[in-house]
């Protein structure tokens, strides 16, 4: 792994630069103090980033009596699963999770199936088509949802796809395309062109080459991209809120907001329990693909 420059810097300096001994020694001392400071700062960051999630878990396992207490504790004194039971009683969580699952799986599969060929063109084609596609990917990052949602609502209404999972899936597919294209194009660029040239010599056309030579090599990247599209769709709220009206059709994030009630006076225990459960799939999948996503994102962003 990368070594911190500070470690070697001062020592080398001691050998090579004479005539600045006082600066030298202080440099070494602050190095050690700085290290301690760095650990302290890192600890502060971790506390800041982790404490809300710890609190969510703690609340989810607390019995009602502890939740009502004026002096809440970090660790539940009598942990219970009552909140989970109550959450399933109060709202149709299983049905909502089923809807979310169908929407997210379909959107992820369709997205990678149609994005892979386009990403291949973006990475390998040298024409205006590829430039335009890349341009759309960049511009769509800045797309104003507010301007798009009303027409989308009207278009889907005309297609009789409002209040259906299929309408939502279509929106999710298009909505996850920019990121999928960006990732996949980065993976394609990493495939050596010699293989494709060899396939071309053997008489394979572009489509054939993509299907039987490039796609198998991309498989890990395609899986990572599909999982990311799944997470995005699983977590999405705004489109689902606007496009799905009846409770039987709604996805998990929308149903979660029903726990909040009209005045926002929520039953904290079941709310926390349901929120915790809804997060688990995303967290688990994200742990799997974390390295690939961060790598793929930057492969496209950083020029060598």
């Amino acid at each position: 792994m990368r070594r911190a420059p500070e470690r070697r810097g001062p020592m080398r300096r001691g050998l090579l630069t004479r005539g600045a001994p006082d600066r030298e020694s202080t440099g070494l001392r602050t190095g050690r103090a700085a290290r301690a400071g760095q650990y302290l700062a890192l600890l502060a960051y971790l506390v800041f980033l982790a404490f809300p999630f710890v609190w969510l878990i703690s609340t989810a396992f607390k019995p009602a009596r502890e939740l009502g207490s004026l002096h809440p504790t970090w660790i539940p004194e009598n942990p219970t699963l009552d909140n989970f039971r109550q959450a399933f009683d109060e709202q149709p969580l299983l049905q909502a999770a089923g809807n979310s699952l169908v929407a997210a799986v379909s959107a992820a599969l369709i997205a990678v199936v149609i994005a892979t060929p386009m990403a291949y063109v973006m990475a390998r084609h040298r024409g205006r088509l590829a430039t335009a596609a890349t341009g759309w990917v960049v511009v769509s990052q800045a797309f104003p949802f507010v301007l798009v949602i009303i027409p989308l609502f009207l278009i889907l209404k005309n297609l009789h796809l409002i209040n259906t999972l299929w309408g939502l899936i279509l929106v999710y597919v298009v909505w996850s395309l920019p990121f999928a294209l960006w990732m996949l194009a980065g993976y394609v660029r990493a495939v050596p062109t010699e293989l494709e040239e060899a396939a071309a010599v053997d008489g394979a056309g572009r489509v054939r080459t993509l299907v039987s030579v490039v796609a198998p090599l991309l498989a890990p990247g395609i899986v990572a991209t599909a999982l990311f599209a799944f997470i995005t769709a699983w977590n999405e709220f705004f489109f689902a809120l606007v496009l799905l009206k009846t409770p039987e059709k709604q996805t998990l994030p929308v149903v979660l907001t029903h726990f909040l009630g009209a005045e926002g006076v929520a039953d904290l225990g079941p709310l926390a329990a349901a929120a915790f459960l809804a997060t688990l799939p995303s967290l688990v999948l994200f742990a799997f693909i974390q390295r690939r996503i961060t790598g793929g994102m930057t492969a496209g962003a950083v020029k060598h």
Partner: protein
Amino acid sequence: MTSVTATKRSGPDDPHGGRSGRDGHGGQGGRPRKGWRPGPPGPPRGKAFGDRAAWFLVLPALIPILILSVGPLLYGIALAFTDAQSGRTRSTQWIGTLNFQDLLHDTLFWDSFRIGLVWAVGVTVPQFLLALGLALLLNQNLRLRWLARALAIVPWAMPEVVVGIMWRLVYNPDAGILNETIRDLGLGDGRDWLTGLATALPAVILVGIWAGMPQTTVALLAGLQNTPRELHEAAALDGAGAWRRFRTVTWPAIKPIALAISALNLIWNFNSFALVYVLTSGGPGGRTRLPMLFAYEEAFRYGQFGYAAAMGCVMVAVISVLLALYLVGRLRGGEDR
């Protein structure tokens, strides 16, 4: 918008005016053909890519993009000039710029717009500084760095709705950990953060900062790992302190990424919806009513499609101008140095 050009490729600068003679897999000998833009420097990309094959491969994604992304955008702009409403039997009329004239005098909208700007800047700037600090730390050879890296991206994986719910539990006046900590430290009784007129906006801004930390940190970390280490060592040899090394070596290397991610963050934050919807629904008294929430209510609660679309247009226009000014200013600032 850009992909519209993809549908009319036979522009004036295309000598062939069509696809004839440009399809297929010709390109023998790797000779660049007319109508092909020379590629950026780098290794040659094998033989030329047939246009017909390219179209065939792009089409499955292009059609949904045109229907559900480019189309709606243009449709949305058109709607802003109509009196479209939901559930009305009378047909929609063109009304010119009437919506925009109304909007000009709509003080509620401009209040909301101001709140949106405060929110977007108030989230983006601290978020960038905090993420930069975290990225610099994670780039060091510290123990437990793997754990820190894993924890640092947890907020990224969470549904925004859950983030909102989680922070409501933290901010809860009675059962929340924030007020409990304040009471433990003897700093008073705490307060009702999300419903207090003065505290609601700062409270949601803090959540916004928390939620967007991972993306920013990961992007900056990638930039840092691309900084040439030799430069760092050379600077250290010359006796440059940590700050000087940051100013002269690190910052120039990560500046493009820093600009890109902060510009994107500004847009994303300005378009933010779910977090604040869950945290406060825009209350108390509209103190946290971001423009997205305002437009959502206008469109889907009151059914004023045309008017809401006009709001969208204004939001996009103002944000574009601000971003252009920011980017031009930053890039110029870089040239002077």
